[in-house]
């Protein structure tokens, strides 16, 4: 009887509790690795300043010494201030970009280190490897978003006239879409292997079509049509509205609906692609190759 009890609680028999323990182990491992590299922590403070700075300074140069370019910008876009506009757009892009690199590379890195195949052989819930990698990443990203807000206000002088509650609501609603895309991406990359090219493609699409530095109205019509199918377009719009305007919930309600809808789609797509990749890996036996 005694030995049966020991066996029933071991990883040898997969139960939901074992799955949670495996998830906890992956989270702990990822968190330990994250803390092991101080430059990753430094980057949470540095990127929110330097990434928008490139665009802000280019906009400053385009404005001209006498501000004639800025007058043209105001006439074209109807916006009076470009710093906050650029800061919020680039912040959302950085979030998605880092999710692609970190969550999207979670399995690929294991593959490169040669530990994926052996992990795959353990009788655990395999989605835990991907989900577990996302949790420390989510914590670090929420920290980065908070730091970004502070730095934009203190260094760039951005005046956030919106509501903190609505900003938090937009972030919360965006998590499924941003991380669902990361899950789907991780599964594709593990099969296709050419991970850099895929990151460049996906983040490039977000950069081109979602209006991180310009209003969508400036784009050709076909590009505007594409942008409507990308959740980041609505996330950026909602975040700008929540943080920089006084429109209130009415200004983000429609965006929130679409963001949640996209979130449900991408989470389902991420999970389905992961299962497909897992089945394919077992059939082809190519999971350890890179």
């Amino acid at each position: 009887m005694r030995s049966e009890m020991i066996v029933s609680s071991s990883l040898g028999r997969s139960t939901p509790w074992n799955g949670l323990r495996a998830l906890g182990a992956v989270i702990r491992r990822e968190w330990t690795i994250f803390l092991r590299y101080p430059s990753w922590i430094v980057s949470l403070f540095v990127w929110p300043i330097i990434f928008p700075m490139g665009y802000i300074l280019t906009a400053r140069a385009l404005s001209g010494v006498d501000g004639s370019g800025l007058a043209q910008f105001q006439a074209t876009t109807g916006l009076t201030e470009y710093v906050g506009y650029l800061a919020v757009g680039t912040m959302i892009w950085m979030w998605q970009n880092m999710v692609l690199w970190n969550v999207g590379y979670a399995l690929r890195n294991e593959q490169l280190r040669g530990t994926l195949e052996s992990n795959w052989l353990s009788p655990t819930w395999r989605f835990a490897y991907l989900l577990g990698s996302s949790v420390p990443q989510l914590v670090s990203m929420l920290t980065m978003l908070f730091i970004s807000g502070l730095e934009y206000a203190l260094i760039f002088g951005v005046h956030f006239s919106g509501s903190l509650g609505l900003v938090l609501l937009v972030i919360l609603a965006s998590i499924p879409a941003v991380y669902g895309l990361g899950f789907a991406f991780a599964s594709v990359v593990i099969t296709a292997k050419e991970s850099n090219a895929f990151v460049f493609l996906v983040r490039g699409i977000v950069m081109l079509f979602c209006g991180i530095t310009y209003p969508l109205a400036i784009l050709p019509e076909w590009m505007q049509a594409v942008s409507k199918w990308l959740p980041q377009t609505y996330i950026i719009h909602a975040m700008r509205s929540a943080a920089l305007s006084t429109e209130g919930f009415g200004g983000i309600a429609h965006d929130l609906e679409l963001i949640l809808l996209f979130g449900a789609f991408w989470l389902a797509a991420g999970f389905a692609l992961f299962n497909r990749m897992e089945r394919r890996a077992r059939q082809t036996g190519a999971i350890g190759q890179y």
Partner: protein
Amino acid sequence: MQNLSQPTLASHARALYALIRKDWKQYWRYPLNAVSSVFHPLIWIAPVYFMGLTFSTNGKALGFAQYSGTTDFMSFILLGTVLENFINAVFWGMGFALKNDMDSGVMESNWLTPIPRLLILVGHSVTNLIVTAITSAGMLFFGGLVFGFHPTGDVLKAFVPILPMMIGLYGFGFAFAAVVMLIREANSLVDMSSFLVQIFSGSNFPVNALPRFLLPVALALPLTYGLDSVRAHLIGTTPILPLNWEMVLLVVFMFVMLWVGVASFRSLERRVRILGTLGQH
């Protein structure tokens, strides 16, 4: 009968060739990555193009011309991006290649070979420079088609300031590679530092548009003068200093950076060997 245990100039050349060949094969093993390196910089500058349109009147950035001397902001940015690609090739080619060697567990064994360590670093950068030349030509071609690229000046004259700039950059790359060896993490470091250098050397905008308190940072970077000279020769922008002075500064910086880079690399590499952390990552 000469082998690597009795190093000669010929054996060093063979080692260099082996390194270049290995990196070349590895690079083309992932063809999608290779193709994306042509289009990725174009995607990166596309937001600047659309942003530039919102500041322009009839496609001419008149405000931009007040700082740079040209309304053709896309030629200015395309040229800056191409030069930045070469600068990054040296950044990535050395520091990042060392990190790859650490991750794949070959760093320690490579280090035990009787090859000068600086030669290993140079070898890692050569493939990157060749690939960058190919992808930059593709980038200029496609970028010219999509955004327009209008060089009006002397191409040969534009090459002259590139030489001291690139040689000096090797000095910086050596020091940087040693730092990567010491802290054993390259990605964030490479990304952040190359992005900062990109901003302050004025790859996307004329540095005189920087706020006054940031201008000394830009003027302390030799790359600023390299980019400025090439643009002045090729697309007729207004240089920040007379071109002869910029050339003198580039040559002086070249010697200083090489000396500082080699000295820092030797000192930090010795420290890593004493610590015994060469094989760790």
